[in-house]
């Protein structure tokens, strides 16, 4: 009997572990982070979550510095997109990791173009947001906020997440003035931090830290009047 159990164990352990029916595959990237408590959490969050919110960049005009004005047509200010997030403990600091399996929606991608309209780069940019998932559906949306269903409770002041679809072209405006280290802006997900403007550079720029850089989220009261503006991340965003 013992030998039979041993044989079964050997057979059972041969090869790879099998994936189950709910397997999502290998993630493109896994974001690690921690949530820190800010001040004045009232009321205390019930179901705190951390997730990524991708603004709809495709609806905005593409920034073309030094070019003649180009009529990009009507603005498309549709809702932003929410990427899969992760639940965190209500006791802070709380660690989390977010698995990203797919690129962000195409409408979240914005482009950098030269004066002739040639593509200099394309990427999406996400805020790292903490929210109270009051309706317990694991998602966050502006509609749920407007409807008072979910409640934002914090954001990352220091980090954002970008997805590079088309890396910046060397010598392009994006290469020269958006990224501090453009050669690191390879295709895929990256964590970025803001680099403040200085005398030489009138706009903030972003430094690519890599997807394994841990995110830091401050859970602090956020209301309708709060402008989510991470520190020194006021760079020239891509557009249509």
């Amino acid at each position, binding site marked *: 009997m013992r030998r039979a159990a041993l044989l*079964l164990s050997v057979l059972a352990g041969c090869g*790879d*572990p*099998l*994936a*189950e*029916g*709910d397997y*999502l*595959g290998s993630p493109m990237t896994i974001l690690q982070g921690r949530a820190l408590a800010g001040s004045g959490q009232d009321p205390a969050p019930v179901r705190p979550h951390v997730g990524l919110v991708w603004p709809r960049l495709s609806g905005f005009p593409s920034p073309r510095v030094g070019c003649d004005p180009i009529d990009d047509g009507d603005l498309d200010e549709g809702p932003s997109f929410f990427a899969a997030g992760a639940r965190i403990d209500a006791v802070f600091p709380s660690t989390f990791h977010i698995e990203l399996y797919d690129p962000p929606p195409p409408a979240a991608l914005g482009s950098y173009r030269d004066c002739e309209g040639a593509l200099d780069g394309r990427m999406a940019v996400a805020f790292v947001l903490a929210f109270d998932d009051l309706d317990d559906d694991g998602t966050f949306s502006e509609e749920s906020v407007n409807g008072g269903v979910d409640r934002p409770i914090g954001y990352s002041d220091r980090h954002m997440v970008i997805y590079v679809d088309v890396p910046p072209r060397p010598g392009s405006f994006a290469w020269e003035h958006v990224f501090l280290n453009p050669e690191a802006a390879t295709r895929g997900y990256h964590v970025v931090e803001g680099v403040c403007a200085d005398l030489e550079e009138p706009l903030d720029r972003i430094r690519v830290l890599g997807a394994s850089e841990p995110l830091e989220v401050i859970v602090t009261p956020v209301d309708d009047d709060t402008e989510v503006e991470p520190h020194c991340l006021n760079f020239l965003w891509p557009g249509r």
Partner: protein
Amino acid sequence: MIALRRGVAACLLALLFAPAPAGAGPRRYAVAIGANEGVGGDERLLYAERDAQRIAGILRDVGGFAPEDVLVLAGVTASDVRRAVIGVNARLRADPSPSLLFVFYSGHADAEALHLRGTRMPLAELRDLVTGSPAGVRVLVLDACRAGALTRVKGGRPGPSFRVDVEDRLDAEGVAILTSSAAGEDSQESDHLGASFFTHYLASALIGAGDRNGDGKVSLGESFTYASERTLAATSATVAGPQHPTYRWELGGRSDVVLTRPFTSAALGKLELPHAGSYLVHERAAEGPVVAEVASTRPGLIALAPGTYFVSRRAPDHLLEGEFRVDAGRRTRVDPASMRRIDYARVVRKGGTQRGSALAVFAQAGVRGPLLGLGTAVRAEAGTRLDFAGVSLQLRFAAGSSQADSPRLDIGTREIAASLAALRDFDLGVITLGVGVEAGGAWIAQRFHEERTPDRDAGVALVGPTAEAELRLAGPLSLRADGSLLTYFLEAGNDPGAASSRTPVTWRAALGAALAF
């Protein structure tokens, strides 16, 4: 199962012939004694009293014995036997016509005495009662252990017998001893036959199986020849070993005695066995008592009371079976074309032939239930099966695939499995049902149709109960269905670094066909 009887007995055959009055046939008297209960530590026999009833019935039906002249003693003591034989002898003295006395005993005995329900009757006393009988012809048949000790014959064969009708003038006298076994041998009962071996074959001989020369009469010599040959053949493979019936024929002249004329009674029918072979005849159905066994190298004929009989004919690798109606005064032919052929695995399970195993191959299509939420798998199966008397072994190979859609991924799973099953089969008419256990292993390959997500391949073990049903179609072809409830032993986990051992349970079912060899 064979029950052994202990004891020693001898059979004395005393023949004293007296000239018969012209035109007068001998009157026949019989005393048939059966004793299931012996003495002391004798194991209780099952069929001795039934043996006596059977012989008595045959003598009445086809031996020319008037019913009032046949005495059956079952479960009696030595005093009862003594009183009965003395009583018959007294009747014989009062009847001056030629006569025949037939005394039959089946039960326990030893070298000195018969064992009768706690009492002993010296063998010499019985011998003297018979040999001293006023009957013209005296026959004593004794079916008990170690009979040859009294005859001091370690196996023997009857000499050439020649038929002499009792009605004819006989000028021989003497003593003949018939034994059911040689010195040192046990005499055995057979649960399968429902009788002792020797009496069973003696009875078969008397109703016609022993009519070697085909003259419609069965002589003492013919009946003993048939009974001894069949007894030796049947007991050769038993645990107790072969049994060698013997006899000693001491006659001033050689003559034979016609014991039965099986085919002259209008009250009986005839069962014709048109082909040489080995036949077993049961009353009513296969489960009914065995009434005759015929093994002959030429066509045979036996007499039976009207009724329905189940006849089986044994060949080296198959059986033929069928039901036949026997009517009084009519002949019923056992036609092989009207019999069912039992072949392949069924004949192995049934036994009675030389075939010890049967091979078959099968092919099936089936499904396997969901495993780890990966969907139901469609499978193709093929295998081979080896049937023995008590167990069937099946080796199965299967290939299957399933498709599952996770929230973002298509998961294709392929499985190649091999398993061995051991089943116990039960033949119920044209359907065979089997239950058992199946165990084996499989190789499972998962493909995710996404370059970024690596494929996974794993070996797993499986075990579980299994059941099957098979419907015989024609010849070697059968329709089959089977299923199992399987426990898989495997490693699972979406995150390879956090995998764990799991034992999910699922089911398998398949439908197909089998071809036997």
